């Protein structure tokens, strides 16, 4: 379908972008890669008064190091994330999950920041950001603020981003020590969203699992951490039995939906299987 009419601005700096957003009227939408926004506009689920296109804001692109964190610009495309050497070195889980997103064409346009700001419960990157304890740097009329992942995802398609604000960059702590990672995605066809997925990062120490961080995709309106499983794994033996036993708690505290792909009870089952598989792989089993 054809989107409803809208005003259009194309700033080239963050400051210009914030100004364009402020002046855009009642309903302003930021356009990043457009891979989620344009479809919902075409379906007329969204009919913004103004679209602020930030594809020309160069300072929002790219990955850099800042002490013990990686800083990923919001406009870094999925493709650039997959091929970035710093991400490969310090946060391979991000790249692994991003590789499962959609198809090549979508990955060339879609962005890391756009995927996180959209906060689609079936999207793959929010759970990864949550598992890695990423931080979100947000610019607004009053300056910049930083929000931890745990507070960023508020509800279905809703984040801590306020009106007038722009997601600028995402800070991902570099993981040091003997970490293994795995993104286990379950979907029916290759280019589809996750029915359920599990992001796992596991640190091993002397044959034990010292620490496990587990993010869950599409097990509720927001990404979730599998806290009970994480607790059960902390200090556990790195054995198939210990992992399987901990994974059985993966659905605790989740509230998955029932839809064409899966009813809630099946999702609760799937998340246990996928958690077992993701943690086993991340633990090197």
């Amino acid at each position, binding site marked *: *379908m*054809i989107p*409803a*009419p809208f005003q259009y601005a194309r700033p080239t700096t963050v400051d210009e972008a914030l100004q364009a957003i402020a002046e855009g009227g009642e309903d302003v939408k930021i356009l990043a890669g457009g891979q*989620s926004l344009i*479809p*919902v506009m075409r*379906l*007329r*689920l969204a009919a913004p008064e103004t679209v602020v296109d930030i594809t020309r804001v160069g300072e929002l692109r790219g990955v850099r190091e800042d002490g013990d964190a990686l800083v990923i610009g919001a406009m870094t495309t999925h493709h650039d994330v997959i091929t970035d050497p710093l991400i490969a070195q310090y946060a391979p889980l991000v790249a692994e999950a991003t590789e499962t997103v959609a198809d090549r064409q979508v990955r060339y346009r879609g962005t890391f920041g756009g995927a996180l700001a*959209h906060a*689609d*419960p*079936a*999207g793959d990157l929010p759970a990864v950001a949550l598992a890695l304890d990423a931080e979100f740097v947000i610019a607004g009329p009053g300056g910049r603020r930083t929000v931890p992942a745990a507070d960023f995802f508020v509800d*279905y*398609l809703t984040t801590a981003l306020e009106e007038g604000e722009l997601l600028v960059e995402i800070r991902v702590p570099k993981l040091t020590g003997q970490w293994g990672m795995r993104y286990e995605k*379950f979907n*029916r*066809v*290759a*280019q*589809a*969203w996750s*029915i359920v997925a599990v992001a796992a990062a596991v640190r091993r120490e002397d044959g034990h699992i010292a620490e496990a961080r587990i993010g869950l995709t*599409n097990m509720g309106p927001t990404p979730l951490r599998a806290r009970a499983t994480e607790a059960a794994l902390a200090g556990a033996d790195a054995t198939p039995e210990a992992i399987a036993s901990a994974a059985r708690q993966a659905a605790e505290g989740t509230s998955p*939906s*029932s*839809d*064409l*792909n*899966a*009813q809630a009870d*099946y999702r609760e*089952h*799937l998340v246990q*299987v996928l958690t077992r598989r993701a943690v086993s792989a991340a633990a090197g089993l």
Partner: protein
Amino acid sequence: MTVTEDAATLAPAKEVGQPRRRKEDARLITGRTTWTDNMVLPGMLHLAVVRSPVAHARITGIDVSAAQQAPNVVAVYTGRDLAEEQGSIPCAWPVTADMVNPGHPSIAVDQVNHVGEAVAIVVGRSKVAATDAVELVDVDYELLPPVLDLEEAVADGADLVHDQLESNTSYHFVFDAGEAGTGTDTEQAFADAEVVVSRRLVQQRLIPAFMEPRSVVVQPQGDNYTMWSATQVPHVLRVMAAMVTGIPEHKLRVVAPDVGGGFGGKLQVNPEEILCLLLARRLGKPVKWTETRSESLMAAHHGRGQVQFIDIAADREGNVKGLRVRLLADMGAYLRLITPGVPALGAFMFPGIYKFPAYRFECDGVFTNKVPTDAYRGAGRPEATFAVERIMDELAVELGMDPLELRRKNWIKAEEFPFTTVAGLEYDSGDYEQATQKALELLGYDELRAEQKRRRESNDPVQLGIGFSTFTEMCGLAPSRVLGSLSYGAGGWESASIRMLPTGKVEVVTGSTPHGQGHETAWSQLVADQLGVPFEDVEVLHGDTAVAPRGMDTYGSRSLVVGGTAVVKAAEKVVAKARKVAAHLLEASEDDLEFADGKFAVRGTPGASVGIQEIALAVFAAHNYPEDVEPSIDAEATFDPVNFSFPHGTHLCAMDVDTDTGMVKIRKYACVDDVGTIVNPLIVEGQIHGGLAQGIAQALYEEAVYDADGNLTTGSFVDYLVPSAADLPHFDTANTVHVAPGNPIGAKGVGEAGCIASTPAVVNAALDAVRHLGVSDILMPLTPERVWRAIHQGGDGGDRATAGTNAYGGAQTESTAGVSTPASSLGGDR
């Protein structure tokens, strides 16, 4: 080396059999061609359709005033405005004498009967203007209970789709072999049987999902009209549109420019085609309509949609004794072009390749508050093949027999062709054993069976299964007299003509309009061989009723078998006419002339010869030609087959089933198809691949799902899952060749084979993997959830939740799915 072999190597290679790349592909793939939506005409107006968001309701009021006043809107009409002139979308196949057809308005007048039905139309100066104004039309509905479930629709006291009718049943069609004299008494066969196996199988609704959306442009010129449409059937459309609107047939020209796929979905007279014609007549200006993908999924006809009750009778040794089929076939809300005929066509294919002595088929065509069903690749035959190939496996289990042994015991032997089946069809040629042997080798059957055993014994979480489908189909639609006996409204012949141009180039006009099959290439190969001219010298014209005035178009794997034969017959006439001229020019007797490689030569007189391309010029100049003939070697031919053709094949699928998650993954797929003579192996391979993709998609991915309110919740490609190459396995394909005796080419048709054969092979494979875990059926599509439930909770996997996925923020709106009420389950945050 013998002398004859020498001669053979010197002659130019035959075109038939060459894997020529398709000459039409460059323009089709790049889109640099005349897709209907590319058409721009001066003063052209654009149509947008206001569609019903409810499945069943009386229209109590429509307010179009706001839309009328919107910028660049030219006119807004309701069904009431067009009621007098819109007629009814035609149904050409009254399968029984007392079939009930409630009529099918192009735009609803008093009542809507499915989500997506047109209730008002907006004509704008631009597509944007028309689309924006759609939201301004205000319609009041008085809701009626939606009728959605086939079994409930035929129960006593069911709500009615059409309350002026007595029931939801449109027709009751029966074929009884005992009564027809083609078999023995079915009830007796069942009464006497040692073993009877009965199953209820479900053919879910599918959506044709052609790549190019439907699109139509109508241009009025005086009292003449030209309609361009993305249709499979310009010829059929012309006749029907003339009858519906009263525009005289000779004042209406229909053009199907390049058309991007159809799969039966464009074998239709669409409401929007009629509406554009009516508007062009009213407004005196060109009118265009192109659908969105959401409209296409919601309002273009669907396919399949059957509940099948099937019983098989056999003795303990596995000799089949009888087959009984009772169908509930979903018509949807209305009867479109061949809606009622699709399941009836399948009636003749349920016995498959097996020698059933007794057979009875009954089908109820049932109305529901969903978009109408109609032809979809295979049309009736995939449904039949699925049922018989599934029930053969179930019988094998019941008897404790190997499923292949059971099939072998009952199939028609090579030496028994031609064979008249219990359904009265005369199968032409083939060898089921040979195709099966070849397929087993391609698959590596023995190793896979050994692996299956190992995995079972070790209780591997990933189990392996192997599924069979040994199928045949009736193709080459169709002998006109047979269609007449089935009450179909037209014939099944095809027409072709050949024009020899002065420079010796050749124009071939075919009535069999392609929509992506590669006719231009295959027909050129046929003509190059027949006339002995270079492949490059042949151009194939089609799709325009002013250029190709006679034709029956493309569906039912008919084009090469019927249309190609017409081309060959026309070429034979060209050669016969040219022979007279050649004799005259060479001053020889016709009987002394030999025609080979495009030249007429006088037998025994070396050097005395003239080429057919030279004769074309001589006849054009017309200075010197025989007294008793007209100066033309052009010719036309019409071919009406005497019988169908019967491609067959064996399809084998090896399937991994992850019992932890229910995920199924095709491990290996091998098929051997016998489609008779192969004119172009690349095209045959391509047709098989595409057919396999669609047949596998029915088994694993696709389903049109409606919620309790009658909303189509698979209203976008986020939820209606069409697989891509990444989701499909490598296909190991091969052919056997048993020439079709019914046409001079020897071809049987390949357009639907892959789609018909593959679905049961895939489902049988999945069941074979988990049968030992107590699973005997799983509903299609085999979603991981259904497979998991069948394994761990028993049953057939059950119904899916109907809510659309939340991905995309719930890619569903009123315009993609319908309206949300407390009972409905649309996805997203509404």
